[in-house]
């Protein structure tokens, strides 16, 4: 055992700082939060209440509704967004270097715009009157204005639409970096092997980008399961819980109702779900690609 540790001493040194920081700044808060989930949280004198928080949570219909919303949101956004990201990256990759730079900038730089402007744009997009951007577009085809964010039938979809039309810049850049790393010789071999553009795409590019895809998928699912900001900004969970996601519910529970114990319980259930999903993703996408 000791010998093993010594053999791999360097590996342990390499992960030392992250692990130490992790122990202090992540694990400690997580353990506290975990303990909280068995307490009625109170700054001064928390009270142990066993599994009551979990019981409360599972008895709450809003909890199930929010789980369902979150699930729906994740299923409808993550794959679509990865597809969009990948497609855009692939398009950009075909271009000459100068144009690549241009489009990379166009796709990525909006990420630097402040949150204020971004939310402004979205409110203008979803403006319920006929002057709203999307509504005037629909009006062009003679359609009635839609109250995007305020009716149960379209609210969640509107939030999804935000992710579709939102910035994919980060993913695009990651994909482009990975595409650049694929040895040119493989494409040469594929050319010799008569591969059509599609075959090169589906048999070379796509499989070799699996590490990046896995990253985007896992982080995408994590982010999507924890979607909060857009809900908070655009709909506050409404109307009629149509956009109450689990993360928004946790936020409400914690910071509106000060029920940190219950919020922790909700969080750990959410975490368990994400872990399971992630394991599946790792199983599905874990091929080691090494050039």
């Amino acid at each position, binding site marked *: 055992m000791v010998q093993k540790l010594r053999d791999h001493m360097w590996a342990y040194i390499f992960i030392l700082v992250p692990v130490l920081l992790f122990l202090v700044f992540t694990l400690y808060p997580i353990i506290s939060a975990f303990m909280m989930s068995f307490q009625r949280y109170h700054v001064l004198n928390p009270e142990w209440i066993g599994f009551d928080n979990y019981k409360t949570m599972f008895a709450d219909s809003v909890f199930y509704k929010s789980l369902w919303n979150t699930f729906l949101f994740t299923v409808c956004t993550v794959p679509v967004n990865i597809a969009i990201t990948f497609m855009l990256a692939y398009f950009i990759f075909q271009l000459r270097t100068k144009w690549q730079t241009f489009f990379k900038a166009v796709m990525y730089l909006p990420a630097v715009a402040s949150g204020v402007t971004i939310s402004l744009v979205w409110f203008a997009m979803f*403006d319920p009157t006929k002057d709203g951007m999307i509504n005037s577009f629909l009006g062009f085809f003679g359609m009635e204005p839609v109250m995007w964010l*305020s009716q149960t039938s379209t609210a969640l979809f509107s939030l999804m639409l935000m992710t579709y039309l939102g910035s994919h810049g980060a993913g695009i850049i990651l994909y482009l970096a990975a595409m650049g790393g694929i040895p040119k010789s493989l494409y040469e071999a594929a050319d010799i092997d008569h591969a059509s553009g599609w075959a090169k795409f589906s048999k070379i590019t796509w499989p070799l980008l699996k590490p990046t895809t896995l990253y985007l998928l896992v982080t995408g699912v994590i982010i999507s399961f924890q979607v909060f900001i857009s809900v908070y900004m655009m709909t506050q*969970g409404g109307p*009629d819980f149509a956009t109450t996601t689990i993360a928004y519910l946790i936020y409400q529970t914690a910071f509106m109702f000060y029920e940190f114990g219950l919020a922790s319980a909700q969080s750990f259930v959410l975490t368990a779900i994400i872990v399971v999903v992630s394991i599946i993703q790792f199983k599905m996408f874990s091929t080691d690609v090494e050039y």
Partner: protein
Amino acid sequence: SSGSKDGASDVDVIKVWTYPVHGNYKDDIAKSVAEFHAKHPNIRIEYELLTWAEGPKKFDVALNAGSPPDIYYHGVSGQYVDTGLALNLDPYMTAEIVSDYLPGVLDKAKIQGKQYGLPMYQYQWAWSANQRILEEAGIDWRKIQKEGWTWSEFKTEAKKMVKDLPDGSKQYGIVTDATTTDFIEMLARSSGLVDVVDRDGKFIWNDERMLETLKFIRSLVDEGIMPKETAAIDPAKRVEYFYNGKTGIASKGLPYYDVMLETRAKDIDAGKIKGEKIEHVYLPIPYKDGGKWQATVGGEGYVGFRQKDDKGEQHAKNTFLVMDWLTKGVHGGNSASELCVPFARQSQIDAFKGKDSRGKPHNKIAAEINQSHGVPSSDLFVDAKVSASKKKFIEQAQKPMQQALFSGSRTPEQIFEEFKNKGEQLFR
């Protein structure tokens, strides 16, 4: 904080988190603090101006982590008291201070009879209207300001303002937003339901009057007095309707709109922005026919806190001293003055005697009349548990349902059922 203790052991640091209460508050508080320092060299005030949008979150985290600031600008809240960190001010309330407060004002910062905050001014909410539109529709707004109006009167008057504008858009009687909860609350209050719960903590929104309120609101949309896209209007959008002359009345108004609209008029004159200059009329909330005028009022000011690691009695005393300082006389009075609302303390009145106050006289008078019809929120009387349940009710029943009400995706009856169920569940 403990860090400053070793710097100068005899100097006690009092931490204040406040907000830009009004346009000049940043300068005003700086002055107040400087004066305080001159008087009390052994106490140092460290204050931070939070933002309205993000400040509450920062405070929530700090409070629940056990290290809130000593003084926080807010109304009192059962939630705060429940943490056990709110500072009970009763031991420090001298007769002098008590008598400096105008009658009834201190009560607005008490929870279940205990003093936790010192109000700086008396706030109130009602509606704001566009004088031109009122007058074009031939509405006698001065009378309404004085005598109030009933729901049916309101409806008749509001209908007069509804018309098509030359640019093809519509002018509405009243516009509200679907995000903030006060529209329903104010109308319910004026139907006689003072709050979600009464002072004894009993759930009262299961009363038939609630159903009538809901029906009344729905009829406003159905009859075209309110826009049919109301469900999708947010506060900013509501203001936009008002500024653009698309509505006679904007729900949720403050006397302070006088000041805001004045500034805007100046900008229009200066050519910085385009638009119509609007003359502001402050209007009370109409009450249910046969009922009585019930206004939404309260007191806002400073609330005191201790920390998880308590800094001792002297620190608490000093905290109170600073709270008193920041609310009394010119230091607290500037807020009431700027915001065009009634003063909270006699010393404030004295400090501003003879000075020009801002705002239109008729609106000021209207605000004072409205104040006299005020009923305080039940929050001040019920225990923490009820107050928490109330908050939950608002978030998990009222908010989701009100959008449904506006959009018509649920009928008033369904919503009322939902209220009853949720109320039963939460206030068992």
